[in-house]
């Protein structure tokens, strides 16, 4: 024991000898006004934009933190992060000489944290490797590369006709309660074993909903690679405002290590509302819908940080799935049009489809992916190529066919095919389908192998086909998943597999 004691004493002596007392010069200011999570500060003349401020309340050792947002002629407007109830007029404010940072590292995986990187899941402190600034300039042209690898969402309609690539920004837009978050969650669940880190940023959501979601992710084993950044509905607007940037900073850590990250911003309309609140309290002039003038920049600088880097710069990627909630399907409101123009495509969810039972209620006509088939594996490209057209034609014909009863044979066939297609696109929540299975079922459809299956039996047929393929066609499924392409031989094998399966069911129309 004596060695330890000596060692400690020796170390202590060395450390103290090393320690040089220095008078530190600090810039201080005083709070002249505080309220609604906003403080106005006098002094601190050399403060930087978005610099962190430390607020020390007189007569208490508790410290609060703020961020300088408005640098005016003789005062500074700052947002207060966290609880502002203890802050009084006259409290001392010190500049910390650094921009707002969040802890990043492997330690955040599987955790639920607030936008400052503090744990909210009741587990131990985050073991941070580094600190990253929340605001960062997006990667430049030289470092980027075209999007070419797919993100498999596991949702058939999306993977087939609106493919998402790694590094893409795909907006999910629709009314409330229509399955926007469900698409994002299913995508996260399907990333298991796909070499992806996921970050889910909940902005202004009910904490009960987020708790349910985390439980679901845990149950699906998705928390092994997922981080949840939560700024709840009861958190101040300042936290809601920095949440997506903090989430993105955490994603950038993995990007810098050359890994692929999927980040979901759920949702950016609440983020814009929080920013509007802050801006109005800081007395910035209001513009359209009372949003400040820089609300476009607010989202463009965030989404521009999604990228696919070229191999010389690590080859990592950040795929962003921002979510926007519309009011009564109004896509032409201010924030939705802004975000639509920033992103590389959108998935539009339609209330009518949802209530008809077509879930996920993806509108195949209004939804687009500007990256397109570059983000699909070859096998999927082959089977899904014609499907978008077919889906669009079906919708047109279905409206038209309601009038007349006498249709020619070709139109009838198209209608029947379309009915089966929209039946296949129906999919339950939390049940993503592996890409090889998707290829198999789409192959069956476009080759007319499902034309003799009754429409109401399609989902049963599909489920049975997956099961049958897992037992008797495991080799074929494995080959699709590994080679990612269809050869003539493989196509023939798939055909026999499907025909064999059809032999085992009795509801085929003769």
């Amino acid at each position, binding site marked *: 024991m004596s060695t330890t004691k000596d060692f400690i004493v020796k170390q*202590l002596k060395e*450390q*103290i000898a090393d*320690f040089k*007392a220095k*008078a*530190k*010069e*600090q*810039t*201080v*200011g005083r709070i002249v006004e505080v309220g609604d999570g906003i403080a106005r500060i*006098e*002094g*601190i*003349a050399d403060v930087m934009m978005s610099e962190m401020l430390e607020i020390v309340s007189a007569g208490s050792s508790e410290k609060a933190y703020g961020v300088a947002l408005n640098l005016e002629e*003789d005062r500074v407007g700052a947002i207060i992060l966290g609880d502002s109830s203890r802050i009084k007029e006259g409290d001392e404010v*010190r500049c910390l000489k650094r921009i707002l940072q969040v802890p990043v590292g492997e330690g955040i995986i599987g955790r639920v944290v607030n936008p400052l990187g503090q744990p909210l899941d009741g587990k131990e402190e985050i073991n941070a490797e580094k600190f990253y600034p929340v605001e960062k300039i997006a990667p430049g042209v030289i470092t980027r590369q075209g999007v070419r690898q797919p993100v498999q969402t596991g949702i058939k309609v999306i993977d087939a006709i609106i493919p998402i690539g790694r590094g893409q920004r795909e907006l999910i837009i629709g009314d409330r309660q229509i399955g926007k978050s469900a698409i994002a969650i299913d995508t996260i669940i399907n990333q298991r074993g796909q070499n992806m880190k996921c970050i889910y940023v909940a902005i202004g959501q009910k904490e009960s909903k987020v708790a349910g979601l985390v439980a679901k992710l845990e149950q699906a084993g998705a928390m092994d690679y997922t981080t949840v950044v939560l700024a709840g509905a009861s958190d101040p607007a300042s936290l809601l405002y920095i949440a997506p940037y903090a989430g993105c900073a955490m994603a950038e850590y993995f990007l810098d290590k050359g890994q692929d990250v999927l980040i979901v911003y759920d949702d950016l309309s609440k983020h814009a509302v929080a920013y509007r609140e802050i801006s109005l309290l800081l007395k910035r002039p209001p513009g359209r819908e009372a949003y400040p003038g820089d609300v476009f920049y607010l989202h463009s600088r965030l989404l521009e940080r999604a990228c696919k880097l070229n191999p010389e710069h690590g080859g990592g990627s950040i795929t962003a799935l921002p979510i926007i909630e519309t009011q009564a399907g109004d896509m032409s409101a201010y924030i939705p049009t802004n975000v639509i123009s920033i992103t590389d495509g959108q998935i539009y969810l339609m209330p009518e489809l949802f209530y008809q039972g077509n879930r996920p209620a993806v509108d195949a006509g209004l939804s687009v992916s500007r990256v397109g088939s570059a983000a699909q594996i070859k096998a999927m490209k082959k089977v899904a190529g014609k499907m978008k057209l077919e889906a669009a034609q079906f919708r047109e014909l279905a409206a038209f066919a309601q009038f007349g009863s006498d249709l020619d044979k070709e139109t009838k066939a198209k209608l029947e095919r379309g009915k089966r297609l929209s039946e296949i696109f129906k999919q339950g929540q939390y049940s993503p389908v592996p890409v090889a299975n998707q290829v198999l079922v789409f192959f069956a459809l476009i080759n007319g192998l499902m034309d003799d299956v009754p429409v109401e039996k399609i989902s049963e047929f599909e489920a049975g086909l997956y099961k049958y393929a897992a037992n008797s066609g495991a080799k074929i499924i494995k080959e699709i998943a590994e080679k990612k392409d269809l050869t003539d031989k493989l196509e023939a094998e798939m055909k026999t597999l499907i025909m064999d399966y059809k032999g085992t069911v009795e509801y085929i129309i003769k």
Partner: protein
Amino acid sequence: MRITPKQFALSLYEAADGKSASQVKAIIAKFIEILVKNNALSMAEKIEKEFLKIWNERQGIVEAEIITAHGLGREIMKMLKDYLGHLTKAKEVVVHEKEDKNILGGVVIRYGDKILDGSLRSQLAELKEKLIK
């Protein structure tokens, strides 16, 4: 637009700068009249504060507060004053002394919006942090 206390104070300074005592008296009487006209008498206190700030700034006067645990000798005080004059390039340094047992030892100097913290308390806190690391 409403006139801010700062603007009032600035105009008062500019009007009164370099005038004799009797002239200043007249200027102030006029100034009060203007305040009454603008319904701004209630700002008088703020205007006074701003005026002192502007006066100090224009005349090159720096007000500093020196906080010690047990008071300082005359000589050290003089050295600190000279140091501050050198640091801020001020013509004159006005020092307010204050005693605060809580800082344990050393000295804390405040001037403008800056703090020079050479107190024993903060150095001990720093040492503690370093040892924890």
